């Protein structure tokens, strides 16, 4: 990791009896794209507002470029922010909006004109300088909000669900554009979203928020392959969660008793000692299915059951398997046309997966 740009240390925000943000700590490297991902009310927007200086933390420290910024008002922080509803000034033209942060910094007129022109070219709206925000489409307003937040060249750009109001296609297009812009400008971005796909597509790292805390922070593939908690396993992608008891823990794998079967899974923490109740998370696309009658491939983990539901999804099919104990297990199979891998409701099947595809999780009630 390169030098740290932003550091949050045990930041907490309490509103009366409600703890909105609870002991959040994170580091942001220079040039990094970090997403704060979580359901609404999980504290991600409050965290962003505390970084911007719009909300004062109840306790904890925030450092920007090694300097504590706790006592600084927002206008002295030099942090760009894009708001969920864009917050463009309706009485100013596009050029007026984009020039605003430069005027506030006392930049000369000629310099302002030059910078506004450059940044409008960057967001591909050079011909719209004299329009008013309401004359622009949602996507165009979004670009202007972005232009306004980067025109004064902040080191850090905060984005609060900036694409939430756009339709799906435009949203996907803007995701790519923001990502390209991030690469070109080298600015660090903290991006708040509740859309896991958006976070996976855009981020270097993702911080998963739940109930005011960070559940896990890491690169997208780490969160997906090695979720630390049940919440992360279920919030990012789909997961089969099976309850069991550790029989034996050996290095980074352990053997777990699930429904009377011995299953192997990756051990992710010291909690998985013999005798403890744990959960296993298995991604539906890592589960392979075979007819019980056919030759079942060798695998470390196998559970048998009956197909109870088939969902056609175009490129793949999703099967819900009713396991011997009655628990459901979801398996996604590519629709490759092989009749040996086509199943119908009622078929007796064996589900198998490798031990590297299963992760042991702490069995914490409630989460």
């Amino acid at each position: 990791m390169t030098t740290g740009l932003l550091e949050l240390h045990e930041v907490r925000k309490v509103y009366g009896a409600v703890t909105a943000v609870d002991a959040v700590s994170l580091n942001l490297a220079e040039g990094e794209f970090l997403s704060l991902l979580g359901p609404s009310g999980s504290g991600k927007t409050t965290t962003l507002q505390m970084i911007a200086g719009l909300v004062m933390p109840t306790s904890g420290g925030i450092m920007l470029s090694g300097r504590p910024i706790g006592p600084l008002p927002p206008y002295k922080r030099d942090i760009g922010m894009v708001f969920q509803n864009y917050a463009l000034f309706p009485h100013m033209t596009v050029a007026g909006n984009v020039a605003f942060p430069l005027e506030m910094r006392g930049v000369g007129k000629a310099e302002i004109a030059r910078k506004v022109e450059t940044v409008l070219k960057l967001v591909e709206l050079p011909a719209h300088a004299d329009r008013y925000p309401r004359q622009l489409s949602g996507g165009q307003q979004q670009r202007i909000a972005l232009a306004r937040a980067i025109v004064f060249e902040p080191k850090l750009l905060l984005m609060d669900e900036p694409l939430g109001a756009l339709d799906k296609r435009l949203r996907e297009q803007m995701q790519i554009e923001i990502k390209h812009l991030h690469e070109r400008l080298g600015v660090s971005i903290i991006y708040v979203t509740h859309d896991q796909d958006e976070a996976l597509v855009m981020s270097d790292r993702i911080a998963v928020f739940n109930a005011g805390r960070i559940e896990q922070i890491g690169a997208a593939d780490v969160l997906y392959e090695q979720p630390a908690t049940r919440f992360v396993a279920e919030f990012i992608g789909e997961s089969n969660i099976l309850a069991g008891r550790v029989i034996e823990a050996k290095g980074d794998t352990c053997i777990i008793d699930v429904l009377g079967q011995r299953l192997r899974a990756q051990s992710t923490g010291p909690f998985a000692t013999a005798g403890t109740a744990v959960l296993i998370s298995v991604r539906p696309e890592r589960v392979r299915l075979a007819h019980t009658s056919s030759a079942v491939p060798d695998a470390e983990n196998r559970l048998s059951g009956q197909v109870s539901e088939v969902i056609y999804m175009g490129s793949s099919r999703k099967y819900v398997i009713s396991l011997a104990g009655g628990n459901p297990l979801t398996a996604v199979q590519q629709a490759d046309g092989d009749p040996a891998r086509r199943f119908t409701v009622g078929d007796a099947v064996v589900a198998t997966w490798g031990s590297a595809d299963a992760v042991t999780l702490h069995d914490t009630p409630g989460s």
Partner: protein
Amino acid sequence: MLLRADMVWPRVRAALCVLIITFLIAPMVIVVIISFSSAPFLTFPPPGFSLQWYAKLFANPLWASAFSTSAKVMIPSALTATVVGTAASVGLARGRLPGTSIITGFIMAPMIVPVIITAASMLAVFRIWGVEGTVTGLILAHTTLTIPYVIFTVLASLRLVDDQLESAALTLGATRWRAFWRVTFPLILPAVLSGLLFAMVVSFDELIVSIFLSSPTVRPVAVQMWSDVRGDVDPTIAAIGTIILVFSLSVLLIETLLHRQRKRPADTGQADELAAERPR
């Protein structure tokens, strides 16, 4: 031919509307006509037309002094009420003061408390302060009475202005003061001007408190009219009424124009398309 209920009702409604409008507008029209009467009394229809009452009005130093008093009270009180009312609205809408609703209630009280009570209490206090029967006293009273009108319009407008705009201005490098003047104020300006105009009309029109607080030398138009009506009634009063009517209608017209001006930049472009695109 049978008349069905759904055919009768629209007609009854229309007739009622016409009657209401007639009774509200007709007296005003009659006053205007009488003001140009050639007869020495308030008679309708007038036997002929002349401008004598306007001539008499402008020649009478009592009326000139009344108009000047009204202006001397109206302008400072309306301006003060606008400044104070706008500041109070910002505090009430944006501030995180405890007991905001109680404070609002207090400020709005002059709109709700019977005017006669306000008048009597002001007289009692102003006597102690020694401003009874002076222009200063009337300015103080009218400022208090008109602040609620300013707050009423400005507060409504402030609630429509997204407070994220101010947050955005702060993150872009504006202090709170500059954020207010560059972002919030231009957006509420039409409402502030409406408030100013309302305050002017209310001050000019106000009678009860003015009666209590005026003196023979300090007498605004409304009080002068009232004392005239009790004495000899001649069409001068109609001429005054017409002038006030023209003044009020002009203010109303300006107010309407202000609002149309404000809406114009928003209405052009692709408003409908945007409404469909942004489900908020």
